[in-house]
């Protein structure tokens, strides 16, 4: 397994690779032709994802965590045509389509599909060889011009493990954290496709990755360039935001302007269309970033790897910013030294938004277990946190921070039928997904080897098709 480093190691090895083989591309992305754009296509690589066929299905006799903090014991979930139809205790025969199949789930649990807001699957796929290392464009401290989707390898075997073991149905793929502004993220449906576009979550807003702290200053300081300090981090960020404000002004003036791919993204952030997903460990740095966001008029959707959020839970609540955290990663680098396992619990108790994320091809397979640990640690402090609330950390809360909560993330009529049937309480170490549906299509079934994806990479290799 990889060591958990928040991509510290990968970032530094990439930098070397970049030095050896890549010429500075920093400004080449700006188109030189100063043509007046008639209309900017904001979606030039559109999703071609189409839900697969499903059958109307009734899950009965199940314990339901609805994703928004609700729990229904001995309940039923009905879905058809790719959408959730009914959720509750009392579903009458009249509600059930004639062609529906019924699954009796006595002893089993149902949750919305699990959402990982922080993944690098596809960008740092397995096998993790240099040739596949496409997650950090570590050649300039600000690369808002890169889009993570242009690195996503849709054959990453990690997608299948995340589905089968973790019940992951949606995930955000982020650029790495070598850069202050790492580029655009993309939200995917966890459904294999021949193309990246075939996995793209239709209608999901874009995000942009930013990073505080050690990584940018180390990567660029080592090259003898700015930033080499935390104050340098802020200075480069602020200068860049000033340019973005200027660009936006020109763009909005209706006059001719020269398009710039990176500035398009930053202006999109200032427009409120692109969500900031900010890697930031330390409480004091988060507080500074909050002020920076106000200085330039944007909003941080979530601080990721926010191991010190517990120190400023009140500030995060006041500013409506989620903390995407691990249950118990700590100590792998200086800025993770103050991580405590009660981070999520203290945040929840303070009324701040909690998300459990992975940043890891292994732990994405057990986000439910990570939530269970964080829940237990929070309860030990005497906080009254329900099981159902802990499930919201993996479902509705990440959906909100990604801007897709009107489509998925909870079991509400009309939403996508992204559903996991667990063979026991998902907060137990002994439970695993029994079945996973995405948009109502059964794409994993523990009892049916044919409902288990095998990526092109694994076909014809040792262990292919093995129950992983």
């Amino acid at each position, binding site marked *: *397994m*990889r*060591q*958990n*480093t928040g991509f510290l190691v990968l970032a530094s090895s990439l930098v070397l690779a970049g030095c050896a083989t890549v010429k500075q591309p920093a400004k080449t992305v700006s188109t030189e032709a100063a043509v007046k754009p008639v209309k900017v296509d904001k979606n030039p690589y559109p999703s071609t994802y189409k839900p697969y066929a499903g059958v109307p299905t009734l899950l009965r006799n199940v314990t339901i965590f609805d994703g928004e903090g609700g729990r229904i014991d001995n309940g039923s979930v009905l879905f058809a045509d790719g959408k959730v139809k009914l959720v509750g205790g009392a579903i009458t025969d009249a509600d059930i389509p004639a062609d529906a199949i019924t699954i009796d789930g006595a002893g089993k649990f149902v949750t919305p599909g699990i959402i990982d807001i922080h993944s690098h699957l596809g960008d740092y796929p*397995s*096998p*993790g*060889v240099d040739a596949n290392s496409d997650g950090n464009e570590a050649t300039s401290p600000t690369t808002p011009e890169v889009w993570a989707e242009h690195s996503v390898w849709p054959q990453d*075997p990690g997608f299948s*493990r995340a589905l089968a*073991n973790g019940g992951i149905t949606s995930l955000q793929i982020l650029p790495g954290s070598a850069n202050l502004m790492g580029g655009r993220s993309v939200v995917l449906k966890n459904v294999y496709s021949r193309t990246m576009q075939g996995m793209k979550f239709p209608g999901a807003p874009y995000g942009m990755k930013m990073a505080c702290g*050690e990584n940018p200053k180390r990567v660029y300081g080592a090259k003898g360039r700015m930033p080499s300090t935390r104050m340098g981090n802020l200075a480069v960020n602020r200068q860049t935001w000033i340019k973005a404000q200027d660009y936006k002004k020109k763009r909005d003036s209706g006059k001719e302007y020269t398009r710039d791919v990176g500035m398009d993204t930053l202006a999109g952030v200032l427009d409120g269309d692109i969500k900031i997903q900010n890697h930031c460990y330390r409480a004091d740095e988060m507080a500074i970033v909050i002020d920076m966001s106000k200085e330039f008029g944007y909003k941080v959707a979530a601080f990721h790897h926010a191991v010190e959020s*517990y*120190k*400023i*839970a*009140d500030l995060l609540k006041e500013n409506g910013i989620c903390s995407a955290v691990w249950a*118990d990663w*700590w*100590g*792998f*680098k*200086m800025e993770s*030294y103050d*991580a*405590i*396992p*009660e981070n999520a619990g*203290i945040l929840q108790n*303070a009324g701040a938004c909690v998300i459990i994320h992975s940043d890891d*091809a*292994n732990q994405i*397979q*057990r986000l439910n*277990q990570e939530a*269970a*640990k964080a*829940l*237990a640690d929070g309860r030990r*402090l005497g906080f009254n946190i329900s099981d159902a609330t802990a499930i919201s950390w993996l479902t509705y809360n990440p959906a909100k921070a990604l801007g897709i909560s009107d489509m998925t993330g909870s079991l509400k009529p009309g939403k996508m039928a992204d559903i996991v049937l667990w*063979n*026991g309480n998902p*907060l*137990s*170490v*002994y*439970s*695993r997904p029994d079945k996973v549906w995405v948009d109502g299509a059964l794409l994993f079934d*523990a*009892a049916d*080897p044919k409902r288990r994806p095998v990526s092109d*990479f*694994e076909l014809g*290799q*040792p*262990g292919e098709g*093995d*129950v*992983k």
Partner: protein
Amino acid sequence: MKGLLLACAALVSLPSIAQAETIAITGGKVVIGDGSAPIENGTVVFRDGRVVAAGKGIAIPVGARTIDAQGKWVTPGLVAGFSRLGLVGIDAVDQTNDSVARTSPFGAAIDVAPAINPDVAAIGVSRVAGITRAIVAPETAQSMFAGQGAVIDTGIDADAVTRPRAFQFVEFGEAGAQEAGGSKAAAHVYFRNALAEVRDYMAGSRAVPSPHESLLKRPDMAALVPVLNGQKKLLVHVESAPDILAVLNLKREFSKLDLVLVGASEGWRVASQIAAANVPVIASALNDLPENFEQLGATQSSIGRMKAAGVKVAIGMINDNDSRQAQYSAQYAGNLVALTRVPGASGLSWDAAFAAITSKPAEIIGMAGEIGVLKSGARADVVLWDSDPLELSALVTAVWIDGVPQSLTNRQTRLRDRYRVPTEGALPKAYDR
């Protein structure tokens, strides 16, 4: 541990009492750790740092202090099967990271024992997770031989090393190939040459090659003497099925080698051969990604299948946050139990899973009956849990190491207590301690 405690003048009276006292933990669900089923309403008695008896119907010695464990679980302390615990303060802060020596001229001679630092935060974090012992190995750098690893305890005292130089650690597979010059073939030559040089060295000074002719330094040769003659275990990191078979074949040439495989993500593919060679495995539990080309067949079912084939197997965490997340041992074991409910998968029974993080690593490292088990004569490493120790919500409520009660506070609990309410009060948080 004892020596150090006695050296602490201020503490002399306290631990002496603890040592002399007989403690009987009664009424709990007792797990022996040897793979047998938990015993309801069992008793564990320990005295002078050793277990006196454990099980059902144990007589409580006169004068024993009784601790009521009703509703609780009583187990041996967990043994981290493969780790770098105690060698690293913060991984990415080089000065605190003693797991690897990138420019040392030595390989096999490196001995982690004097570098074990019981003050690193990872020791305290592991202790409150019920880890009381750990198998600790160095990492390789200039040579495929990493050096000599130790068995340590996680006690709060300064004397952490239970058994220094308990084994030699060597990298085969992709990492070994890299360190031996660039190919797996070169690694096998390097290894054979090293043992040949050790033979010459053992044969006497006459045959010892000059420093110019030999690849190994003299301290490296000396460290490998007990490996060659089978007195010291050789832990071999290897992942792929073909590489595992190539390592098992070494026994044909070097019949005395006391081999232990580490990692072995594809062990399931050659489980019967491993069993036939009678070589135990400290395996990665949940590796299931083709993270590199030597782990294409990695699966969570590997341990279950190896066990079913008759391989002695323990859970270890090589290259998996091994400097600080030994606390995952119980979670990994629990996941192997979960696999028994997944069609087509292979896992472990609860009893076997618990043994894989207690008695099995102890047996494999040559400390059977000494650690990782609640049997008469074993070191009194005892842990009380509020519930099933493999479950994610389990809480450790008491820990004894060598019979000495341990603190359950650490740096993390101190930070937690300071920030339970995050807002500042009458004074800054810095005054809150």
